């Protein structure tokens, strides 16, 4: 009894509140909806039921979409790796004229991605798009309808998903010890042999990770197949979206989301396992910086230059067109006519004059900002606990908060929809579905893992002596946190908020499942504008949205990476 009293004395009310809130959040949003999704799918009227499987197998469309997703994912492994490796080699490894400009083009997918990118590609390549109009006049045999189905989806995904190459592969190449290349050259190896035997083997683990990530991106594609997949090429996620709209078919959607989830989980586990084995890191303590290789063969050099610039055009054309057309009037957009008289700022004016035009911005900004700040707070509290309690509590807490990283967004969305469509005790008998808070909670959930990892890293980089020093001078835990820890972490916290905000702002994949009809976010409005029958001025405003989103993303990325490079 005495012992218990003694123990209770040490527990502070504030920590009890924090632990309770955190546990409630984890159970209500990270654990329960996902478990409930599985239970609801497989248990009907208190009995295990495989009805969902039967329904899935008998639905031709659903089976087709499963097959399509795997076809797309496998195709992407090949195409994305080829294009991604090529653009990284020409910007980081070979000496190519104008590499800096090329790099800006290839890096554009960092700020020009998701639904905004898909809309841009559609405007350029589709049957009533810019390229079709221009080329069909020049070449009568040009097939204006090619940009639909598998080809179109793969085309978009190939150029949209090379960001991982530009970030991770570039980094890996920059870390190669130039001495190894010179040593091989000195021993008589040709350029091709050096690339094959010395450079590429070092990059193997990076390739492996990127390939897994690319595969997962392919499996969970949503906006590209929805916009350009047509009837012939729908994949898992668009199918889940359709099924989720009707209560009758919702369980098939849920089952497909579970299948997607299992595939994701398996691949991530394999990736983790493989990454742990094998040493490919340079053993050198004094590495020399890599110097770009001049291609010896004149012919090869010319071909590589040509291909590099062709890819550059493919990367920036949709983006440039969107920017150019954002400055034209609706006539120009509808007729794809770039006469000088058609240029104006009217679209940007529309943003403020047309009723409701500005609304999606407000909705997206409010949602994204609130989610980013909430996530930052949760992660600050959580990483503080993880840092302090290195034992089981910390490990379990970290694992729970990283759950959303293991699950596809669609699964998380389905879990929320199927769990909180009825009042539940854990949410104080409130209905989440139908409330504007539904999308907010999903935004919070999906940004958690990234923010947690960043903040945790910052916490562990913190010098413990500072905390000890503060305590030795008599400061309380909270005072130390406020005056010593927080100021040091603040730049990271801000960076995390900016990046999360930037990632959520144009979000489509999650929003499309969960948005409140009265508050349409940007992603949804942009998608609507890509539809054939959408009026001209909605396309015009879509361009304006896209341009402003690109600008915001550029600023956000610059803020983040610019800050990091300064530190070095």
């Amino acid at each position, binding site marked *: 009894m005495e012992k218990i009293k003694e123990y209770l004395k040490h527990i502070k009310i504030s920590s009890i509140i924090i632990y309770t809130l955190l546990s409630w959040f984890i159970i209500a949003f990270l654990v329960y909806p996902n478990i409930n999704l599985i239970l609801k799918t497989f248990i009907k009227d208190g009995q295990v039921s495989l009805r969902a499987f039967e329904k899935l197998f008998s639905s031709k469309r659903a089976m087709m979409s499963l097959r399509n997703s795997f076809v797309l994912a496998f195709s992407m492994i090949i195409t994305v790796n080829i294009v991604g490796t090529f653009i990284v080699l020409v910007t980081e490894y070979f000496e190519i004229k104008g590499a800096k400009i090329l790099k800006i083009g290839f890096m554009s997918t960092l700020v020009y991605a998701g639904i905004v990118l898909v809309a841009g590609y559609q405007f350029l390549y589709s049957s009533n798009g810019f390229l079709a109009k221009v080329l069909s006049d020049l070449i009568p045999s040009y097939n204006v309808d090619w940009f639909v189905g598998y080809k179109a989806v793969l085309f978009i995904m190939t150029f949209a998903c090379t960001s991982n190459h530009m970030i991770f592969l570039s980094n890996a190449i920059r870390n190669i*010890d130039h*001495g190894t290349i010179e040593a091989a050259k*000195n021993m*008589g*190896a040709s350029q091709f042999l050096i690339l094959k*035997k010395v450079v590429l*083997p070092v990059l193997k683990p990076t390739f492996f990770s990127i390939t897994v990530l690319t595969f997962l991106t392919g499996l969970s594609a949503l906006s590209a197949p929805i916009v350009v997949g047509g009837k012939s090429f729908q994949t898992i996620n668009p199918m889940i979206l359709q099924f989720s709209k009707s209560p009758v078919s919702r369980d098939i959607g849920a089952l497909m989301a579970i299948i997607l989830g299992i595939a994701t989980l398996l691949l991530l586990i394999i990736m983790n396992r493989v990454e742990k084995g094998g040493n490919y890191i340079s*053993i*050198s303590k004094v590495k020399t910086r890599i110097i770009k290789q001049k291609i010896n063969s004149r012919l090869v050099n010319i071909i590589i230059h040509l291909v590099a610039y062709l890819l550059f055009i493919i990367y920036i054309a949709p983006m440039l067109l969107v920017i150019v057309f954002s400055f034209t009037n609706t006539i120009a957009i509808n007729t794809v006519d770039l006469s000088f008289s058609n240029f104006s700022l009217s679209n940007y004016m529309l943003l403020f004059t047309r009723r409701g035009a500005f609304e999606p911005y407000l909705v997206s900004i409010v949602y994204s900002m609130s989610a980013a700040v909430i996530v930052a707070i949760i992660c600050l509290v959580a990483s503080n606990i993880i840092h302090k309690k290195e034992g089981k509590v910390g490990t379990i807490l970290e694992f729970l908060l990283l759950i959303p990283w293991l699950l596809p967004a669609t699964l998380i969305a389905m879990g929320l929809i199927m769990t909180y469509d009825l009042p539940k005790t854990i949410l104080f008998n409130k209905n989440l579905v139908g409330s504007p808070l539904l999308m907010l909670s999903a935004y919070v959930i999906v940004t958690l893992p990234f923010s947690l990892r960043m903040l945790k890293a910052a916490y562990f980089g913190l010098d413990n002596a500072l905390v000890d020093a503060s305590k030795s001078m008599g400061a309380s835990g909270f005072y130390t946190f406020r005056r010593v820890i927080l100021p040091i972490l603040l730049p990271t916290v801000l960076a995390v908020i900016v990046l999360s905000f930037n990632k959520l702002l144009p979000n489509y994949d999650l929003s499309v499942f969960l948005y409140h009809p009265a508050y349409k976010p940007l992603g949804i409005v942009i998608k609507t504008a890509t539809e054939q029958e959408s009026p001209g001025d909605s396309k015009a405003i879509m361009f304006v949205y896209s341009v402003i989103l690109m600008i915001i993303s550029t600023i956000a990325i610059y803020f983040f990476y610019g800050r990091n490079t300064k530190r070095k």
Partner: protein
Amino acid sequence: MIKFENVVIKYDEFVAINDFNLEIKEGEFFTLLGPSGCGKTTLLRSIVGFIDIFSGRIKVNDEDVTHLPTEKRNIGIVFQSYALFPTMNVFENIAFGLKVNKLSKEEVKKEVYEIARKVDLNETQLFRNVSELSGGQQQRVAIARALVLKPKILCLDEPLSNLDAKLRGQLRQELKKLQRDFGITTIYVTHDQEEALTLSDRIAVFNKGNLEQIGTPHEIYNKSQSEFVCDFIGDINKITGSAIDTINSLSEVKFDRNKTAFLRTERVLTVCDDKKYIKLKAEIIDFEYNGIFTRYYYQMNDNIIMNIEKNDGSDYSSIGEKIDLYINPADIKQF
């Protein structure tokens, strides 16, 4: 064997090496010595063929190699980082060049085993990953990888600079032994004067792209031809002003009081009956005890003079003590 004729190396506008001439003999262990940024690595890389020279010629055995690509020069190199391929094991690393030259499997195996035996790498080590080897073993792999191609010349770019002091000493001996055994012409780059003195047959001292002096270690140390060489190699006393006046008043040789005079620390004695030496009055102001020896600091006029005393059981001196120092004016240098 190797001849540099009026070699100029430029990086854009910056002249790294200006009008350089040198001849290195067959079988020689030749060291390029100098502080970082003096152009010694640049010169080495021009021999190997990684850097194009701006003008002049480089000849190997009277053959002009100036414009030959690196792989055609038959000059091996061991990098500062060793640059071992991390994705290959020891055997594959050594066999790399042989395979490039399209030797048969048996030949490759034979050559690799032979060189491995010579550099003391056993069979289990041959099939280890290079990251599992110690620094010394990695160095031997790097050397074996270069030597297996039977180069005419072996170039070493600061191969000991990233090791700790003890290993450095051990590998230095190993390196010298290997060079002697193979009898290969070796060009060695270092900024460590002790390494240069112990290893080399001849040394070239560089400063800011200019050659200061070429000579045997003995010549470089004892007959330094410039202020820079004197100061860069070994410990030295710098004597100025009134101290030079005092020396001039006692010595037959007279020194210029407006220039700095140099005197090696070990040439300052406290006990001496040689008539060539002159006696100077000084006071001990500080000392550093170093185990084997003690370094004393003496006040002489307005100069501070250092010397080294072997700790061989003789009496210690203490701070404040007045003492007589003996120096031979013939040891003093002025440039």
